[in-house]
C-alpha cells in the first residue's frame, strides 16, 4: 500500500516543519497543565474526602463520579459556537478556565457542606472544561502552520497529560505531609487554577482569523505578536447559526464518522484497568497508579507521534493508534503476561493509544476545517467522540452484568477489529499539508 516515499518520510530525522512550535501553543499547554494539576488534585482525594468527612454511601460516590464523568456534553458545542461567532476564542476559553477556578473557591467555602453544594461544584468544574475545549483547540490549530498541526497538538497534549499525572501526586504528597488537612489541598488547587488563568492571560494571545481556505493559518509565529496588536480583522458570519454547512464537506463528515465509530467500540479505561486487576487477582488500590502511568506514557509519546502524524498522515496514525488498544484488549482477555508485567505493558499500550489518537484527531479535524468555523467544527468532533464513549461505557456496563466479563471483552475486541479493518481498507489519505 505504501510507497518508498512513505518510508523516506518516516525515517527523515527532522519533521518537515521542524520541532519548534509557536509560543502560543506552549502558553496554552502551560494553562492546561496548571488547570489539570488543580482539577486532578481534587478529583483524586474526592472519594476519600467524602467517605472520611461525611460517611457518604457508596451509591452517592457513584453518583458523584457519574456527574464528573458524564458531564455536560452539549456545553462543549456552545463554547465552540460562541468562540466562532464572536471570534474571541481566548476570552471564551478564559471564561471556561475562570469558571473552573471559581469552583475551586467554592470547595474552600463549602467544604463539609451538603451533597447538593458539592454536586453543583463538580458540575460547574465540568462545564468550565466543556466551554474551553473547543476554543482552546481552535487557538492551537490557528497558531501553527498546517504541516505542523499534529506536532503542536502533541506538545499541548503532552503538557496536559503532565498536569494529569502531577495532580494526584501533589495531592498525595500534601495529604501525607499534612494528614486530614483537606483545606490545604483545596487552597493549593485554587491557587494553581488561578495561575492557569494567569498563564492564559499572559502567555496566550488571540489569533486573528481572516476568511481563508481550510488550514491556511500559516502566519509565522513571530508575526502573530505584531498582528494581535491590531486584531480587529472582521470575522465572517455563517449562513446558519450552528454551522451545519460544515457537514457538507465530505472529508469532515468522514472525520466525524471516524471519531464516533471508534469511540463506540473503545472500552473506557476504568473498565480496562478493573478487568485487568480482577483477572490478575491484584489489589484495586493500584488503579490510580495505572492512570498516572498511562498519563506519563501519553506525555512522553505525544510529541514524537504528533510529528510522525504530520509526516506520514494524521488519518493513518489515528487509525493505527488503535492497534495498541487491540493488543491491550487481547492481552487482558488472554491474561498472558503475569502481574505486574501485564499492567506495565497495558500502561504502555494505552499511553501510546492516547498519544496517537487524542491530539491527532484534533489536528486531523483542524486541517479540514475553515479557520472561521474551526472551534465549532472541533466542538462537533469532540461531542461526537465523547457521546460515542459515553454510549460505549453504558453498553459495556450493561453487557458486563448480563453476559459476564469474558464475553463483553470478546464483543468489544471483535468490534474494534472490524472497525479498524474497515477504515484501514478504505484508505483515504488526506493531503491537506
Amino acid at each position, binding site marked *: 500500500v505504501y510507497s518508498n516515499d512513505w518510508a523516506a518520510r518516516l525515517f527523515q530525522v527532522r519533521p518537515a516543519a521542524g520541532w519548534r512550535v509557536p*509560543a502560543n501553543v506552549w502558553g496554552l499547554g502551560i494553562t492546561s497543565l496548571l488547570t489539570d494539576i488543580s482539577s486532578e488534585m481534587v478529583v483524586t482525594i474526592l*472519594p*476519600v474526602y467524602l*467517605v*472520611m468527612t*461525611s*460517611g457518604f*454511601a*457508596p*451509591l452517592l*460516590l*457513584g453518583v458523584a*463520579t*457519574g456527574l464528573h*464523568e458524564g458531564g455536560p456534553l452539549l456545553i462543549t458545542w456552545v463554547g465552540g459556537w460562541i468562540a466562532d461567532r464572536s471570534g474571541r476564542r481566548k476570552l471564551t476559553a478564559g471564561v471556561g478556565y475562570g469558571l473552573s477556578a471559581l469552583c475551586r473557591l467554592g470547595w474552600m467555602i463549602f467544604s463539609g457542606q451538603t451533597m447538593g453544594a458539592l454536586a453543583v461544584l463538580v458540575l460547574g468544574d465540568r462545564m468550565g472544561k466543556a466551554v474551553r475545549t473547543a476554543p482552546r483547540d481552535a487557538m492551537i490549530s490557528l497558531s501553527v502552520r498546517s504541516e505542523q498541526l499534529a506536532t503542536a497538538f502533541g506538545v499541548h497534549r503532552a503538557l496536559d497529560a503532565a498536569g494529569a499525572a502531577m495532580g494526584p501526586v501533589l495531592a*498525595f504528597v500534601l*495529604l*501525607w505531609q*499534612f*494528614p*486530614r*488537612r483537606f*483545606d*490545604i489541598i483545596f*487552597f*493549593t488547587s485554587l*491557587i*494553581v487554577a*488561578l*495561575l492557569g488563568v*494567569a*498563564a492564559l492571560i*499572559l*502567555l496566550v494571545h488571540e489569533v486573528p482569523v481572516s476568511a481563508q481556505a481550510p488550514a491556511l493559518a500559516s502566519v509565522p509565529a513571530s508575526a502573530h*505578536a505584531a498582528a494581535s496588536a491590531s486584531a480587529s480583522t472582521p470575522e465572517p458570519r455563517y449562513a446558519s447559526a450552528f454551522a451545519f454547512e460544515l457537514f457538507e464537506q465530505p472529508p469532515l463528515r468522514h472525520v466525524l464518522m471516524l471519531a464516533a465509530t471508534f469511540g463506540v467500540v473503545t472500552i473506557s479505561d*476504568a*473498565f480496562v*484497568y*478493573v478487568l485487568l486487576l480482577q483477572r490478575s487477582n491484584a*489489589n*484495586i*488500590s*493500584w*488503579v*490510580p*497508579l495505572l492512570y498516572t502511568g498511562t498519563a506519563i506514557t501519553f506525555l512522553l509519546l505525544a510529541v514524537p507521534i504528533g510529528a510522525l502524524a504530520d509526516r506520514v498522515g494524521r488519518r493513518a496514525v489515528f487509525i493505527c493508534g488503535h492497534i495498541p488498544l487491540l493488543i491491550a484488549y487481547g492481552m487482558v482477555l488472554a491474561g498472558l503476561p503475569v502481574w505486574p508485567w501485564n499492567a506495565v505493558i497495558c500502561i504502555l499500550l494505552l499511553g501510546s493509544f492516547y498519544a496517537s489518537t487524542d491530539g491527532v484527531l484534533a489536528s486531523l479535524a483542524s486541517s479540514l476545517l475553515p479557520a472561521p468555523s474551526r472551534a465549532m467544527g472541533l466542538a462537533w468532533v469532540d461531542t461526537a467522540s465523547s457521546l460515542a464513549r459515553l454510549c460505549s*461505557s*453504558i453498553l*459495556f*456496563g*450493561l453487557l*458486563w*452484568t448480563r453476559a*459476564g466479563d469474558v464475553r463483553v471483552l470478546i464483543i468489544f475486541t471483535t468490534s474494534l477489529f472490524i472497525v479498524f479493518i474497515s477504515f484501514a481498507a478504505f484508505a483515504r489519505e488526506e493531503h491537506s499539508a
Partner: protein
Amino acid sequence: VTRARLAFLAACVIAILAIVAYVAMTRARSDLNAAARAAAGPPVHVEPIASVPDAPFIMFRDASPGEFYGRVALMHLPLGPDPDRDTRFMTSLECERVFYAAGWGVCLVLDDTKLPASYVARVFDRTFAPRHTLPLTGPPIRARVSVDGRRAAFTVFESGHSYADESFSTRTTVIDTASGKPLGELEQFTVRKDGQPFKSIDFNFWGLTFARDGDHFYATLRTKGQRFLVKGSIDKREMEVVRADVECPSLSPDETRVVYKKPVGGVLEVGWRLNVLDLASGVEHPLNQQSRSVDDQVDWFDADHIVYHDSAPQGTGVWLLSVDGASPPRLLLRNAYSPAVQH
C-alpha cells in the same frame, strides 16, 4: 512578550508564597477548628481512656471537628439527660467504621502511612491495642462483632466494578478475632432458595448480623437487582434465602426481630426506610424515621430502641429510634458515627 513572561514568573512566585503562607498561618493558629467547635455548640468534655470499662457503654467514631476527629470514643450507659454534656472517653484508635463486643473490636480505616494508601481492618482488644491487621480491597461500609466476641464480619465496597448502571459490588468477610484468620467470604458459601441450590456470578453480600451463638447470622444478598434476606451458618458455610427486599439487617438481642432498611423509590433508589420484621410471624411494619432516608446498619440500643447514623438538618450524629413505629427519632449523640452498644 518578554514582559508578559516575566509577569507570569512573578505570578508563579506569588502563588508559591501564597500556599506557603496559608499553611504557615493555619498552623500558627493553634487550632483552626476550635472556633468552629465553639460555634457549633457546648464544648464536649473529653477524657482519655486506656481500656474498655466493665459497665455498659456505647462506642462510636467521634466526628466532632477538631483534634479528636475520627477517633473512637465511648460513653457510659445510661446516658445523662443531655448526652452532649456527658464525658466522651477518647481511645487511641482512629477508625472509619468500628464495632465492639465482649473484648474484641474491629476497626476499619484508611492506612495512609505508606503509599499507595489502602484500607485495612484492625482487630483490637479491650486495651484498644491492635492485634491483627488485614488488608481490605475497598472502602469499608459495615462492621460487626459477634456477641461472644469470637468472630467479626465486615463489608467493603469494591470500587469501580461498574458505575455505568449504578450497580455496585461488595465483599463480606468473616474472621476469627483471636487468630485474625479469615474464615471465609460469604460469596464462597452455598446458598439455597426455596430448598433449591441458588447460584449466580453476580452475587453480592453485605450487612452481616450475628446471632448470639456467633455461628448463625443474617445478611443481605443482592442478585440481578433484587435484594434478599439470607440466614446462614458460618460453620456449615451455607445460607438460605428468607425473604425479599431486605437490606442491612440487625438482629435484636432476643433474636425475635430484625430491623433493616428497605429501598424505596424504585430503580433510582432514592432512599431507604427502616422496618422491623418479626421473624416468627413474618409480619413487618415501618418505623417512624420521618422524612429522612436512613443508610446505615442499625444497632440495638435496648430491647425497644435502635441507633444509627444520619446527617439530618437538625444535626449530624447518632440517632435513637423506637421500634414501635410511632415515636419519632431523637438525636442522641451529636457528631458521632458508627455506633456499637455494649451491655
